[in-house]
Every structure is written in structure tokens, then in C-alpha cells.
């Protein structure tokens, strides 16, 4: 371990040639990496940075796993920073190495290989884990989550043998997994507890269009189906599913992908005595209850909200980096989120909250022949939620106004038709990607 970690710990921060502080980032996923990238822009000389990543790869764009699974992209194409980049910026990168303990008194992190690294500032970006329904058989061989590149590799491998797959969960990730497996030659059935797909992101009409479109592509659906058990072939491998319905019907499959949600990874933080609830609780400057320790990404709970999408993570990373750079003027107020389905030929966009109540008003557009459907939910004259199906070109434009809280009353009548039909002078694309 380099000696300067301790030597420079108490350096004078006001000195023109400031000694570097030690920053440790736990988690080399998208959030952790983004904090470092933002920080390098703001204050490249401030810290000596150490990064721990539990996965063996340097870093990759997790939201692009679905195209990799579908064969639309290769892993190389979704790699974001290679090891050379880390080296070039003087960042110590430890991959395949998990941090097992944080010694807050000594301000030291300890990895599973026993490595101890001191920190002046610590960023927790531990992400989340796919939730596995604890049904009998959930631990059988051939039951896979869809979370990491390793999961993708296992699915690709399984699909090489052909056969049938069940994807439990008709949400965003589940459908992308199902589509990917289908593209890889498997016969895929989506098993979904609700009667409509993506109920958190879509309304019934859009969900029906989506299901119709996916069915046309060859996917099968078991809607309103609850899995009672995953059935074994007797040799510890998956053989099928059994459902909780009147006749305990079954579905024979060779592979089960669980895509029913995620759980923030908070064990490390909790064991370090940091306050956690659903996630690691942070304030508007992304600090945990220990002000030296920040947390960003899917492991975080901010103002009661836990996010599973990439856009909030960008917002959080920016605020976090800002503080780490001692700029100190940026605050995170929570994110409005947008979703796009990464299935070739299916354009779907969902953002915000489109549940209706007595304070909401709904605009719709439907052109069923062309497979286009749009729904905008307004609350107090502002866009609260958007569902776009078939034509998502204006998704980011709606999203921009939703985030900005624009009072859209004055162009409400044209709103549903999109930006091309509204005479606003700002046609600036918001600099956001959606997951």
C-alpha cells in the first residue's frame, strides 16, 4: 500500500498546490464510474482515487446488456472504460474484488482479499441485486437473474442448446430478456403476475399494443400467472414451472429467467453502521449519515425513493462529484424517470407518474393501424407522466418539460402531437439518456 495515503491525509486544503486526498469508490458500475468521470472534469487533481469492482470486467454499460443478449451488440461495444483509462488517470482499479468492511473509525475499507485502503471520502455505489422469488426450486440449475454480464453469458450459453425458456416478470428487464432469448432461438414464454405488461410504465392500451407486437414477433405470454414452484428434472436442473391456479397447470421449460425486480445492496453500509431503510439513506448532497461517506445509484434511498433506472444515477453522480470537488452548490432533488424498451423495432417510452386521480387530466393519441399510441397525464398544468408507443421521437422533449415543470397549458392543445406541432422556441434536447 502506498505510503502517501497517510502522509497526505491532513494536508492544508487551501494551499495552492494542494495535497491530494484519498477517495475510495466502492462499486465500478455505472454510478461509481460516473462520479469519477464528473469529478475528473471538476477537480482532476483533488483526489487519489481507488475503485473496487466486484465484477471482473473493467466497466461496461449495464443498460446495454439487453442488446448484447439479443445479439444486437457485442460486449466490446458496451464497454465504457478500459483499464488503460483508469491507469491514465492514476486511478487504482481492483476488479473482481468486493469490499467486505468499512472501518469508519480508521477511515479504511477492507476487501475480500484483505486489502485495506484508507479514505478521506468514500463513495458507496454498490448497486442492486436482482430479486429472486423464494419459490421452491428457485435455486435450481437453469434459474438465472438478469443483472450482470455474467448472467448474459449464462443465458447465451443456455440458449445455444435451443429449447424453451420462461421469463418470470413482464417488466422492462423481463421483456428484454425474453426478446433476447427469443432472438437466440429459444421458445420463450413471459410469465407475468399482472394482467398487463409493464404495468408500472405502461397503461392498458400501450401494454396491449406491446404484447400484440411481441406476440407477433413470436413471444408467448402467461398473464395473471403466479409461479408456485420451479420444477426440477430430478438432476437439479430446471424442468418447468407450476402455477398457482385452479388446476395447478405447468409449463415445461429448460431455462427460467427471474426478472421481477431489484433489491438495493445495503449490507455493507448497514454493517458499517450507516442508516439504511430500503436503501442507503442519503440527503440532497448524496451524503449518508456519515458526512465523509457518499452513496449513489441503485443502492440509494433518497427522499423515500429508490431508483432502478440510469437517469437518476446521472443526476446523483453529478451532485456527488460536485460536492467532492468542493463546489458545494449543487443539490439533488430527486428524479423524474423515463423508460425505453430496448427491443428492436418496438418504440416505447414511459416517463413519470401516469396514475390518474381527481387532480390529473389525460391526453391521448391513438393510431392503431400504425401502432402508435401516446398518453400524457397532466397534473396542475404540468406533465406528470408520459407513455409513448410506436412513436417515441418526442419522448425526450416531453421529458424535458416534465422535469422542468413547464406549465404546458398554453400549448396543451398541440402537446399530444409533439414538438413539431408546437411553436416553442426551445427545441433543445435534454442531455439525458434513459434506461
Amino acid at each position: 500500500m502506498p505510503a502517501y495515503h497517510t502522509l497526505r491525509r491532513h494536508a492544508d486544503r487551501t494551499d495552492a498546490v494542494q495535497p491530494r486526498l484519498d477517495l475510495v469508490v466502492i462499486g465500478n458500475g455505472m454510478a461509481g464510474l460516473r462520479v469519477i468521470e464528473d469529478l475528473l472534469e471538476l477537480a482532476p487533481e483533488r483526489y487519489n482515487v481507488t475503485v473496487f469492482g466486484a465484477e471482473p470486467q473493467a466497466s461496461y454499460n449495464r443498460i446495454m446488456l439487453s442488446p448484447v443478449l439479443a445479439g444486437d451488440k457485442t460486449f466490446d461495444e458496451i464497454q465504457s472504460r478500459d483499464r488503460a483509462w483508469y491507469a491514465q488517470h492514476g486511478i487504482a482499479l481492483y476488479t473482481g474484488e468486493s469490499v467486505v468492511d468499512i472501518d469508519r473509525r480508521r477511515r479504511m475499507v477492507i476487501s475480500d482479499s484483505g486489502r485495506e485502503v484508507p479514505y478521506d471520502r468514500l463513495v458507496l455505489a454498490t448497486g442492486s441485486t436482482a430479486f429472486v422469488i423464494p419459490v421452491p426450486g428457485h435455486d435450481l440449475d437453469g434459474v438465472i437473474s438478469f443483472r450482470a454480464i455474467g448472467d448474459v453469458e449464462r443465458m447465451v450459453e443456455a440458449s445455444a442448446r435451443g429449447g424453451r425458456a420462461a421469463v418470470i416478470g413482464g417488466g422492462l428487464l423481463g421483456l428484454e430478456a425474453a426478446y433476447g432469448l427469443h432472438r437466440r432461438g429459444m421458445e420463450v414464454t413471459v410469465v407475468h403476475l399482472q394482467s398487463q405488461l409493464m404495468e408500472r410504465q405502461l397503461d392498458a392500451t400501450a401494454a396491449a399494443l406491446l404484447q400484440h407486437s411481441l406476440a407477433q414477433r413470436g413471444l408467448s405470454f402467461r398473464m395473471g400467472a403466479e409461479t408456485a414452484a420451479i420444477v426440477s428434472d430430478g438432476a437439479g436442473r430446471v424442468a418447468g414451472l407450476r402455477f398457482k391456479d385452479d388446476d395447478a397447470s405447468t409449463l415445461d421449460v429448460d431455462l427460467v429467467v427471474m426478472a421481477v425486480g431489484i433489491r438495493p445492496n445495503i449490507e455493507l453500509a448497514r454493517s458499517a453502521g450507516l442508516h439504511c431503510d430500503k436503501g442507503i439513506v442519503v440527503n440532497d448532497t448524496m451524503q449518508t449519515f456519515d458526512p465523509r461517506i457518499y452513496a449513489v445509484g441503485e443502492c440509494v434511498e433518497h427522499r423515500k425513493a429508490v431508483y432502478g433506472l440510469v437517469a437518476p444515477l446521472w443526476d446523483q453522480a453529478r451532485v456527488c462529484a460536485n460536492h467532492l470537488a468542493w463546489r458545494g452548490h449543487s443539490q439533488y432533488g430527486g428524479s423524474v424517470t423515463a423508460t425505453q424498451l430496448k427491443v428492436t423495432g418496438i418504440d416505447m417510452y414511459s416517463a413519470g407518474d401516469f396514475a390518474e386521480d381527481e387532480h390529473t387530466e389525460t391526453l391521448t393519441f391513438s393510431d392503431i393501424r400504425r401502432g402508435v399510441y401516446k398518453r400524457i397525464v397532466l397534473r396542475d398544468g404540468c406533465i406528470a407522466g408520459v407513455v409513448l408507443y410506436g412513436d417515441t421521437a418526442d419522448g425526450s422533449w416531453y421529458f424535458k418539460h416534465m422535469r422542468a415543470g413547464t406549465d404546458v397549458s398554453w400549448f396543451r392543445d398541440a402537446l399530444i402531437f409533439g414538438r413539431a406541432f408546437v411553436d416553442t422556441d426551445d427545441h433543445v434536447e435534454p442531455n439525458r439518456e434513459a434506461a
Partner: protein
Amino acid sequence: MTGQTTRTTCPYCGVGCGVAASVDDAGTVAVTGDEGHPSNRGRLCSKGTALADTVGLADRLLHPRVDGHRADWNSALDRVAGGFAEIIAEHGPDAVAFYVSGQLLTEDYYVANKLMKGYIGSANIDTNSRLCMSSAVAGHKRAFGEDAVPGCYDDLEIADLVVLVGSNLAWCHPVVYQRLMAAREPDPKKTLVVIDPRRTATADSADLHLPIAPGSDVALFNGLLAYLAGQGITSELPGADAAIEAAQRMGDAASVAQAVGVDIDDLAKFFTWFAATERAVTVFSQGVNQSSAGTDKVNAIINCHLLTDRIGKPGACPFSITGQPNAMGGREVGGLASTLAAHMGFDRADTVQRFWGSPTIARKPGLKAVELFEAIEAGRIKAIWIMATNPVVSLPDADRARRALAACPLVVVSDVMRHTDTVDCADVLLPAAAWAEKSGTVTNSERMISRQRAFLPLPGEARADWRIISEVARRMGFGDDFAYESAADIFREHAALTAFENNGERVLDLGALASITDAEYETLSPIRWPLSSPEAMRAAGAMPARADADRLFTDDAYPHADGRAHLVPVAPRGPANRPSTSRPLALNTGRVRDHWHTMTRTAKSERLAAHIAEPFVEIHPEDAQTHAIVDGRLATVTTDWGQVTMRAVVTDRQRQGSLFAPIHWNRQFASAARVGAAANPAVCPIAGEPEFKHTPASIAPYEAVWYGFVYAARPLRMQAQPGIDHWTRVPGARFNRYEIAGIDRPGDWTDRVGRWLSVEGRDVDWLDASDPASGLYRAAHIDGGTLEAAVFIAPTPERLPDRSWLAGLFTGEPMQEAERMAVLAGRPADASADTGPLVCSCFGVGRKTIRRAIEAEGLDSVEAVGRAVEAGTNCGSCKPEIAEILAEASKD
């Protein structure tokens, strides 16, 4: 008939422009102005320019129909002749009537008049000209002894002062207006005064606009007469002293200004200008004529010209300008209940009977239009033959006309259209020739006789009106006297009658044409009467022959028995029905620029229909506030006679206390916009002309909870559509547009709209957008890739998209994917493709195009706009609107 150009005459207003029509090998008709015609010298207005659009056979009546079924000509004519003969036999000749039209050619008119007055033996033949210029006829007769317009259009160009009274010349006689404007252009001392309660497009060009109180014309011109007398001007003419004395009862200028409701300085300016300008022409039109004091108004005007001796001189005369293409021809043949024939009254019955050699002759005036329909309703008239006119729309108290026709035992209608409000009341329908198929003559407002020549073949079984009438005459036993072979035969007889036993007593003398050959008639160039034969000229002691027919009364000799002109003492008299607390406003009616009468022709032209797409009621902003009327929304105007619902236009062009609504719309085009139904049936006691310009009325918002419009490639049967309480049809080339509104909001718009378009429950290519909280709904039906219909609903009209762009989507071509969203958006995605509402009909230039050109190129004059985008450079009738857009642009 293809491949050659036919010189003929425009069928619209009384200007009587010459047009050149050609048909190419593909059958495409082109119509341009005839540069050889002296009245227009090649100019045309927007309506004339669009004539080729209107000659198609869509909705034409092509076969006779009897009792709702197609019939052959024989049985239809037998039914007419038999029906009339039977009723005459039983109830006498006064139990039947003809109601004819200023749209008939002189020859048609002559034959109809001859049959009724000389063979049936009644004078119950009146005409829709009664509705527009009979006050001028009566005023002329009182002043001159004969109905004759003294001047010609050149006089307006020569005059140093032109006074337009009750004339929106820019819209109603655009070519004369353009000639006047062109004459003023190089000569700033030429002055234009417009006297009109409304600030019309014409008033915008005036040096002085006097927005007088409705019906106060007599007070104004009496005031002028008194002022002129006060300047020491005297006259020896009969009636001069009495007229001046009557005029002086108006009091001083201040009392006149008060009575007339204008600023005293403006009034003084007018009086001074008139007194000081020798070359002065006073043009008057329906604003004067359509009044219960119409004849007195005409004489009040003529009095001022007679006192100052401004008549019969270049650039000096009173000038009645008529509304119809052949109102003058009708007056010449005497096709009115109040004259006998050829400018002869019933005192000359023997003369006329002698000429015709007819078995009988009408010896007393017949029933004038309004009385005629009263008599039908009362059952005194049992058979009516209506030709080329639409009285169920155009008469005042028009619902009575409909009731009357419903009750009448025999209603015969000769028309060119399969459906009009009047045609729909007929027992016998006779298909008449339309403009492009007719041959004969017409006379315009300056006594110019022009040939109207056919350039298209008669379609279906249609026949010329004179042939139809002659056939009926033959079947009634008068065949020998109606054995006409051609229109020329009739014209020669008509010309001969004007000269018959004339002896210079009547100005109307076409004696020189009485022996015109068929070939001469065919090639006859426009020619102004009088046209006495050389013999007649020599014989005319009291009225020496004139080499030049341009002006009458150049020698101060008049047809009155005493050979002199008469001033007529007149006293101001307000409208017959006065506003009251329950009917506090005065409803005025009139024409719009690009429509004609009951729209049977102009509605066939998309560009004409686009200028003013909908019926409207204009109201002053103060009145609008009082009566809770909002611009662009619907308003219901109620009178003691009827009710109309129209789009409100709130504008200070309208005088406070007055409303204005157009006359054109009817049941074929709108649910409740037939303004004749609301007009009071008060008439001028002398002329019998109805008081269309003044009906006491109230106005209230129409309580629509939604407004909308439908574009449909196929016509919808609006009368039968559920939930549409108000509608107007705006015809287009490839679609119909329906402006609609309702007083109840349906639960499910998709279902409701689907029923309108007859697609409910069917799996069709359908797209829609809805915002229920706002009450917005839009839908489109696409069939085979092409747009079939589009529907737009909103809680207020302001929230509906611009119509003009949508019209262009009905191309019959498959729609592009990207256009589908645009259909419901109601606008193109690319803002620069949107041209806005049509301003220039001739070149199809929209308001937004003009506005953009003004802004982009810094244009600062109407001419500059014309150079840039062509707008206003053809007929020029949109120039006032372009000026308005310029003014607007400079303000913004």
C-alpha cells in the same frame, strides 16, 4: 365547340363584364376577361375569374320531374300547361302567377312577360329584381318619367367627386370599383365619399366615410338639397321649390347631422365638396333601394343632381347600379308586375296588345313579389311558376314563402339545380339551361346590351327557358304567337316593341335592332341603347336623335309628359319597423365578395367558398359586450319573423345598434342561416321593394357547449346527424367541410363521430386524439391510405385548428406516414408550409403567406405585396384586406 373562344357575358352582378370562354380538347373550361368589352376592358373580379369552376354538372337538374319522380318533357309540360289552364278556367287569370328573375336573359324574360300579360291576361309576373332595384325604377319614373339610368361607367372615371350611397362597390361591383380606383390613382383631386352605416371594404378607400344612421338617407340628401339651395342654387324644374321647402324642414346643418347620426364637420365637408364639384356622380345601390322609403331615397338623391343640373353630362349624374346580370333587361321587357312591357305602363295596354295581336291584355298592375307570396299563402293564387330564382331563401319573411309554396296547389320551378330550398318545394321541376349553355342578351347597369353566348352543349334534357315557356304557351293554345325558332327571333320582336308607336315618347328604343339578322345577332358587339331607327329618330320631335347613347338627358328633355325632369319633395321617414326594448338592434343584410345570391354557382368554386366560408353576423364591440356575444362564437339573431344562428364577428366596422348578416346561406349550406327568414316583409309603398336593410332584432349567444368541424371526402347528410345542432357546409373541390356545434356533449366522442362518418363498429383505419378534461376530440378516417374524413371538436372555436391547411390534404393521394399525425394536429409539422386563410382568391394566396412576405421582405404597400406574392394583382378585390394585413404587420 372546342378549341375556340366564345365571347359572352359574366352572369353575376349588374356590371355586365365581357368574358372570353374557351374549352380545350380535354373539355377543360377557361374563362378570362374580354378586353374588347367596354364595361370591363378585360378586367374580372374574383367571382368572374372563378367562372370556370362553376360550370360542372355536379348537382345539376338534368331531367324534368313531376311529383318527385323523373318525367319526360311531354308529360311535364302538359302538366304545367294543363294545370295553369285549369286554374285559369276556374278562378280566372289572376289566380296564377310567374315569379321570375334577373338571371333570365332578355329573351326568356320577354317570352314569360308576353305569355302572362298578353295571353293569360294577368300582370301577376314579378321578379326577384323587385327585391333589389324596384325603388330605383320607381324613383327614375318619378324624376324622369321613365326608368332609365342617365350615365355610364365612364362617368365614374371622369367625375371629380364620386359619392357611393349604400353601395359596397369593392365587393358587390368589383370591376367598376377597380375602374374607379384606377382613375383616382393618378389624380389626387378626385374625391370619393362613401355613405354607409357600415365601414365596408369600400369605405376604407374613401376620402370621407359617413356612417349614417340606418335609413337616414332622405334626411342626409334633403340636408344637402337645403344646403345647395342655401348656396343660392335655384332651379326652374317642376317640384324644385316644393322639394327645397320639404328639405329645409330638416333645419340647419346641426339638426341634419343629428338626424343622420354623423359628425357635423364630416357632414359639412361632404356638403361643401358636393356643392363645389360640378363633375359629381352619386352611385346608389341596395343600401338605398332596400327600404320602406326606398323610392323617396332615390328621389332625394336625384333631386340634388337635378337642382345642380348635374345630369346628362360627362362625369355628372345620379347612377343606380344594379345587382343582377340582367335586372336591366328585365326592366326593359317590362317583366315586372308594375309595368306592362317595354317601359310602357298599363295606360299603353292597347298599344302593346296591338303589337302582340294577343287575345287579351293585362290592364292593371299585378302583385309585387311580397304581395304575390302573401296571395299564394292566402290561396288567391293557386299556381306559381318560378324561374331561375330561389324565393324561399331570398324573400323577406322567407318562411312564409315556404309555407305559401307548401300550400299552393301547383308549384312549377325551372332551375338548373337539383336541390335548392325552392326546388325542394316544387311539384313540377323543369331543367333549364345554365349560364354556359344559354344564348341571348343581357343589359347591364349602363344600358349596355351584350350577347350571352353558349359555349357548352345543353346537358341531359335541359332546355333554354324561352323554349320551355314557348312550349307551355303552345300547349295552352297560343302556339302561333310563340313560334320562335331562336333567341334572335325573340330579340327582334322585343326591339320592335320598344320602337312600336314610340314616337320619341320613350327613351327605351331599340328600333335600330328590330331587323337585325341572325348573323348580325350572333356577332353583335356590346351596344348601348337608345338605338332608335333612323326613321324613328326623324319622327322624334320631342326627343331629338342622339349620335351618342352614352348619356341620356343631355338635352334636358325628359320622357315626362311635360318633357321635363321633376324634383320630388320627400320627407324623411324611418324604417317601417322600429327597434324596441325586446328587439333593440337593427339587422342589416347584404352580399359578401365571393358569393352570389343563394350560392348555387359560387359554392361550386372552392376558392370562392374559401374567402368567407361561413355565414356570420357582424356586431359592434359595445353591443357585443351588452349582449354577451363573443367574436368567433355562434350567436342567434331573432326577429319577429324568424331566427338565424351564425358566427359572430365583433367589429367596429359595424355601427353601434346595427347587425349585419349575409344573404347567401340557406338550408343547402347551413342549418339556420337563411337570413331572409328573419327579414321583415315591410316594403316601400311605391316600389314594393322590401326593407332588407332594417329589421328589428335581438341577439344572444348560441349556447353551444362544443364547436367543431368535419372534413369529409364524401358529403354527409347533416340534417340526419345525431347530436349536431348547428352546421354549415363549406364546399371544396375534393371534400366538404362542415362547421358544426352542439348543445350537448356526448359521453363517447369516438362512438358519436363514428356514427357521423358511418364507420361505427367497423374495423377501419381510424386515428384519434382526445383530451376529455378540455373537451377536445380529433379523429381521422383513412381509407385505402387516403384521407376520407377528419373531425375536430373543441369547447370553444378558438381551440380548433386552422382550416385552410387541412383542405389541402384531400388530394386523393395516399397519405405519408408522417402526415397522419399532422392531420390531427391540424397543421403541418413544418410551419412554413401553412399559408393561412385565403385572401386572394385569384391566385390562392393565404393570409400567412402575405404576412410572412411582408415580414421577410419588409413590404410596405399593397403593390409591393402584389409584386412579391401576386396577391391582389388580378381582380384586386382583396386589396383592402391586404392593406389591413399591412397595417396589422406594422402594428405588431
